[in-house]
């Protein structure tokens, strides 16, 4: 079976600092794959390499078997690789409706110069409304994004990624910074993501990782340290010592 997402000997250096060191990772289609590791282990750098924010120094990235190493970020999205950000990257004074309309419209190729007003895009508007409702954002679709509670902003962050209809979705700490009372809403959305979407999750919250993931990769110092099922990783003494030991 062709992996949904694969890296081969991926390496990224910043000066003499090796942020990602020879990482070879394989994620099978439909997986719920968690990426864990202590702070500074290079998790977000890896996501940035995968999505084309940074260019790798060496190695390859394959999406569904296709080499996307040299493609710019937007071209990777068009091929079905989407992400959310650890720190919200939203359009502050645009409404959730406009933001989601944008994401869906771009997916459908409506964003090139045209004469038709946004409101004439009924199919896109209907899909946007349905998506906003699913993400519990329907009641705030018309207000500026900055005015939303943080939990709602996190939901919008995920909604925008889903709107691009990804084959592989990279979630960078989706519940980070969300207050306790809004947390279950975000986690519920993450759990209910469509089964055919391959999800790679970066997370610090071990309860979430163990309840969500079917496979876990552990990064330490930019390199892949261990990989296995939830049971294997949670029973691995070395992982416990290096990583879980911090929390315990």
């Amino acid at each position, binding site marked *: 079976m062709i992996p949904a997402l694969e890296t081969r000997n991926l390496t990224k250096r910043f000066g003499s600092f090796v942020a990602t060191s020879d990482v070879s990772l394989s994620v099978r289609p439909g997986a719920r794959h968690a990426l864990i590791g202590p702070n500074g282990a290079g998790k977000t750098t890896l996501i940035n390499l995968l999505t084309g924010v940074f260019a790798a120094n060496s190695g390859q990235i394959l999406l569904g078997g296709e080499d996307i190493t040299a493609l710019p970020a937007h071209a990777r999205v068009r091929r079905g690789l989407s992400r959310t950000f650890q720190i919200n990257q939203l359009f502050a004074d645009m409404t959730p409706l406009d933001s989601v309309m944008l994401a869906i419209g771009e997916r459908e190729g409506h964003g090139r110069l045209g004469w038709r*007003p946004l409101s004439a895009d009924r199919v896109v508007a209907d899909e946007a409304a349905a998506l906003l409702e699913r993400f519990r954002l329907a009641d705030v679709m018309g207000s500026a994004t900055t005015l939303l509670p943080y939990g709602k902003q996190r939901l919008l962050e995920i909604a925008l990624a889903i709107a691009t209809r990804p084959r592989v979705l990279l979630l960078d700490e989706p519940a980070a910074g969300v207050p306790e009372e809004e947390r279950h809403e975000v986690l519920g959305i993450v759990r209910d993501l469509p089964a055919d979407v391959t999800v790679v999750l970066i997370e610090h919250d071990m309860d979430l990782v163990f309840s969500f993931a079917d496979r876990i990769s552990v990064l330490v110092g930019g390199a892949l340290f261990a990989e296995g099922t939830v049971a294997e990783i949670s029973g691995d003494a070395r992982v416990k010592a290096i990583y879980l030991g911090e929390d315990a």
Partner: protein
Amino acid sequence: MSGEPAAPSGQAAALLRRAERWQLWEIALWIIAVAMIFVMPSHMLILTEIAILALLAVSLDLILGYAGIVSLGHAAFFGLGAYSAGLFAKFAITEPVTGLLFAGAVSGVFGLATSFLVLRGSDLTRLMTTFGVAMLLAEVVNQTGWLTGGADGLSGVTVTPILGLFEFDLWGRTGYIYSLIVLMAVVFISRRIVNSPYGLSLKAIKRNPTRAAMLGISPNRRIVVIYTIAAVFAGMAGALLTQTTSFVSPDALAFHRSADVLLVLVIGGAGYLYGGILGAVIFTILRDWLSVITPQYWMFWIGLILIVIVMVGRERVTRWQALLPGSAANREAKARAAALAAARDAA
């Protein structure tokens, strides 16, 4: 919306329609502009000047207010349009509308060719490259005196009646009506552009390029397109100046023109199309008034006003449209204030 809470899709459709609707103040503004023909028949020349400056500012707003590209060389397109229209009238066709389209096309080609210079880099590099392009063009005009008249300007531009029907008159009435129609047409087209999915993508690129790329948007192509369109409109503004004055001065390419139009946008506010028009009205009247009361120091006062505007806070001063009754921005500002108040109460 009335009565029952609408289903999300109906609510979305209503919100989208509301954002695109012509607002009262917009309609009022155009009625006033048309009424000026009858109300102030002796001020046609300054009104024409305002309309041309407004057109240039609207075109700058497309790239500055929507795509977030700062330019200190927008006069390049204005001047190129002015000279194109002048030379076209002198050596080819004297009919103004043809000349207007020709000038727009020439300027647009130049805009397309130079758009690649503004794709990369910071605001500062963009300021410098656009400034450099305008200086280069000004020097080319200066050195090709055999064609452009050099420092003396291009004279002997003949302008025949518009479409062969409407003759330019001594009081500038035809000139104002002509300029106003072009301004209206450009604002109407620009309105369609910024309210389209393409316009939305420009706003997104300006606000958060990182996220825009992560939605599959290739920013470069979008910027090239809007830069070219803005160049076409700026070229048309230049053509209007040539055709309403029958003369092209090297001043059309001067640095101060690029700076003035930027100032106009600062005064009027960027990012809602009408800032250029309101700014042009305020700027021109202010300059006229100051140059009458203090002919030698008017630049001093303009400078002082600029500083005050920036210090008092652009956000508040330049969102004129928010103060107008019946504006969506006004409603939005109220909703924002109410939400903030509610958040304070909750805390």
